[in-house]
């Protein structure tokens, strides 16, 4: 999968956790999951579980502190898929 394909799948994963759907029209790699997309922090672990299931990868345990933006989350998934 290339980065764009991973991004499409990642956005599908995070979509259910976004209450106010109007923010989805302006999602970029710089979008902060909590501050820009208003995802409740209680769902960060849910997103990790969804990513692991969708991409069939095992995320490092310190992922939560690194998954601040869409782009940084993509970096980690991309690295895992290439690894």
């Amino acid at each position, binding site marked *: 999968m290339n980065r764009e394909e991973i991004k499409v799948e990642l956005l599908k994963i995070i979509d*259910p*956790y976004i*209450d*106010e759907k109007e923010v989805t029209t302006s999602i970029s790699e710089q979008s902060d999951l909590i501050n820009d997309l208003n995802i*409740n*922090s*209680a*769902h960060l*672990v*849910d997103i*990790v*579980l*969804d990513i692991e299931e969708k991409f069939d990868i095992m995320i490092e*345990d*310190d*992922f*939560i*502190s690194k998954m*601040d933006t869409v782009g940084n989350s993509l970096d980690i998934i991309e690295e895992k898929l290439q690894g």
Partner: protein
Amino acid sequence: MVGIDLVDLSDPNLKARSDRTIPLISHPEDVFEKNQFWLLWTAKEAIFKSYRTNRRFDPKQIPVLIDPNALTFHSGKIMGKFVISENVIMAIAHHREVNPIFKIYRRRLKFGESDDVRNQLAAHCKREFGWDITIGIDADGLPIILSQNLIVSFTHHHNYIGFAIPNI
């Protein structure tokens, strides 16, 4: 300093927590029981908020010792307690010398929980203290009651919202 966090377990988007999820949030010095993911999470979030920092929340960097019998916890100079109801687990954290006031409410609006909880705080302060408050942010972008120069911590999840302030 005070911090509050809550989780509404009725949220259908919450997946079951398992042995896999604990390592995502745990610190080597944590003391808790295996099935206490949400106690651990809410305690860490509440403690983090009590730090009043604009750094990123990293649960793995916050050690928590939970006493499940007393429903209390502590982390360094921060102490706290849990309030648990059928669907809601709430943690309130504070420095030893601070006696917090906290309230949780069921949300009245589907959206706009930020305004909702601020309105509840304003109503509480008017009712209890006779204050007409304005809520703003401090130099770190964290919430504060401007008129009283009093820190405030907010929380919301799914159907519930809450706030905590130091008791003056």
